[in-house]
């Protein structure tokens, strides 16, 4: 042994070599090595990982409440009748839905499962908007009985609703889902009735001819992550024109205009090189586009003593995305044959489904020394597609280092997969900084609970 004194030796850090590229825009989405964050909502990341394990989803109650309030205020300040509905599919963890409901949101659901979830949480039928192309008879019967707002997607569904209404001698108020070309966004023409072809007006007539049905609402959802507010101006204009026409022709009276969701969140869409702060409109800009157009289009109604319609919103992504982060730990580093560094973390696309279309913000949770270099971040799955970031500049990371992915609140806790790995804990940081589990980590029991093994397969020894 040459040396046993360790006190004054510097600690070994990974050597790095970085080529200087002058005059080139950095296409990797640079993470300046000084940029790190060791807490979330004032709770130390190290404590969170220590107590709840890694990977870990962390939701901020305060942020979520603030976002709902900000949205509802932005619209209510510009239009007299506004009702916000929480879009369940975006994140239907009970805790998330409950916070939205406590802030006054109704529920927007698209399946029997989501409908039952909302009812189970205590949301009354009349505060549920029931969308979606698949509403089996049993759940439709229940929803109609409980006074939910039924948004009709196609003629067969209309037929079924009419049948139920007649059989149970009820008068059912319905909303028609419309699709049309805004001239700005890709039309989502597979949902609802098309306006330009006359299909939507035919459906309005179909409703008018039924003694048990009444058309009282119009709905459309023009897409998701819509970054151009002109799309909403066009949407509201088309919907209001259709409203006037349907009322005049068929004698209905429309009481609700539902503009769906689709506002972009502050997340970096792949292929968009400008940072989200520069390309994503603010909630106030969306509100202005929608409310200005609606006020103008319904101006005449007020004069004629007809009420302006209630404006319904189903914003998902823009409300919840930045209220949640994902913490994930480094499990190993390697060098790819082309020279790039690869880092493997314990959360993959099984948990972060949105990694397929976002370049999430990735932050170290301690100050890293060393020069940043191009790195690929892989998840733990044995699949080539399990890439969390295809290219990011990061200083060298040690095994056990924790990275913070954000924003992750939208569409991950619903579209995630139980694939290869267990899904981890999801915790909520309460308003008072207490932390509690809102969805417990899976274990073998949880994952296999629904399986049944036939008797003759119980013995796995070769026969």
């Amino acid at each position, binding site marked *: 042994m*040459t040396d046993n004194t360790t006190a004054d030796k510097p*600690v*070994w850090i990974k*050597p*790095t*070599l970085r080529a200087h590229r002058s005059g080139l825009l950095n296409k990797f989405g640079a993470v300046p090595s000084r940029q790190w964050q060791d807490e979330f909502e004032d709770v130390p990341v190290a404590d969170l990982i220590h107590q709840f394990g890694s990977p870990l989803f962390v939701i901020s109650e305060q942020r979520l409440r603030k976002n709902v309030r900000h949205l509802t205020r932005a619209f209510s300040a510009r239009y007299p009748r506004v009702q916000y509905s929480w879009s369940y599919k975006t994140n239907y963890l009970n805790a998330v839905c409950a916070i939205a409901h406590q802030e006054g949101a109704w529920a927007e659901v698209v399946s029997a499962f989501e409908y039952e979830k909302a009812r189970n949480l205590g949301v009354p039928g009349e505060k549920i908007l029931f969308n979606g192309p698949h509403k089996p008879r049993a759940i439709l019967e229940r929803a109609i009985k409980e006074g939910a707002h039924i948004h009709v997607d196609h003629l067969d569904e209309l037929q079924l609703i009419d049948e139920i209404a007649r059989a149970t001698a009820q008068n059912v108020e319905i909303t028609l889902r419309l699709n049309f070309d805004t001239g700005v966004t890709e039309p989502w023409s597979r949902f609802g009735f098309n306006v330009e072809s006359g299909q939507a007006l035919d459906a309005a007539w179909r409703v008018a001819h039924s003694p048990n049905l009444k058309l009282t609402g119009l709905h459309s959802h023009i897409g998701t992550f819509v970054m151009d507010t002109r799309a909403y101006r066009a949407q509201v204009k088309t919907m209001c024109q259709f409203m006037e026409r349907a009322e005049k022709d068929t004698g209905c009276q429309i009481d609700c205009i539902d503009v769906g969701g689709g506002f972009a969140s502050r997340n970096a869409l792949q292929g968009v090189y400008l940072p989200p702060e520069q390309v994503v409109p603010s909630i106030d800009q969306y509100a202005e586009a929608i409310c200005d157009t609606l006020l103008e289009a319904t101006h005449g109604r007020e004069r004629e003593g007809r009420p302006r319609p209630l404006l319904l919103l189903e914003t998902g992504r823009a409300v919840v995305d930045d209220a949640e982060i994902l913490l994930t730990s480094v499990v190993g580093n390697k060098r790819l044959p082309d020279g790039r560094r690869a880092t493997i973390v314990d959360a993959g696309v099984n948990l972060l489904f949105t990694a397929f279309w976002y370049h999430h913000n990735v932050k170290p949770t301690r100050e890293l020394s060393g020069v940043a270099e191009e790195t690929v971040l892989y998840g733990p799955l044995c699949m080539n597609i399990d890439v969390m970031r295809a290219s990011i500049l990061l200083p060298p990371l040690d095994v056990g280092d924790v990275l913070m992915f954000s924003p992750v609140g939208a569409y991950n806790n619903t579209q995630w997969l139980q694939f290869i790995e267990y899904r981890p804990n999801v915790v909520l940081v309460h308003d008072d900084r207490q932390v509690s589990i809102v969805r417990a980590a899976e274990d073998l029991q949880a994952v296999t609970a629904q399986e049944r093994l036939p008797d003759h397969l119980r013995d796995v020894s070769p026969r």
Partner: protein
Amino acid sequence: MFYNRHPMTNESNTTRREPLIDAKLVQRLAVSDSGFVFDPVSGHSFSVNETGLRILRLLKEGQDLPSAVKALCDEFLGSAADIERDVLEFAGLLRKQFPA
């Protein structure tokens, strides 16, 4: 090639001592104390961190892997296995950046 074998499982490791990288290749590099590296052949410049700089200096002296690792273990606080892996990786990066 020597570099592609894992040093811990490579039986010839203890007997075969050769430089990690062609000494002539690293000799031509101008290296400043702050870790700024300039290659007069390609005109490109690079930055290395503190440990990268130390490895580069050892390579310029023509050290082979075992002696470089030993020198670094004496100087730094870290496991021999980590240091050995990092030196190999770093040598690989150099070969890629400065083809012979």
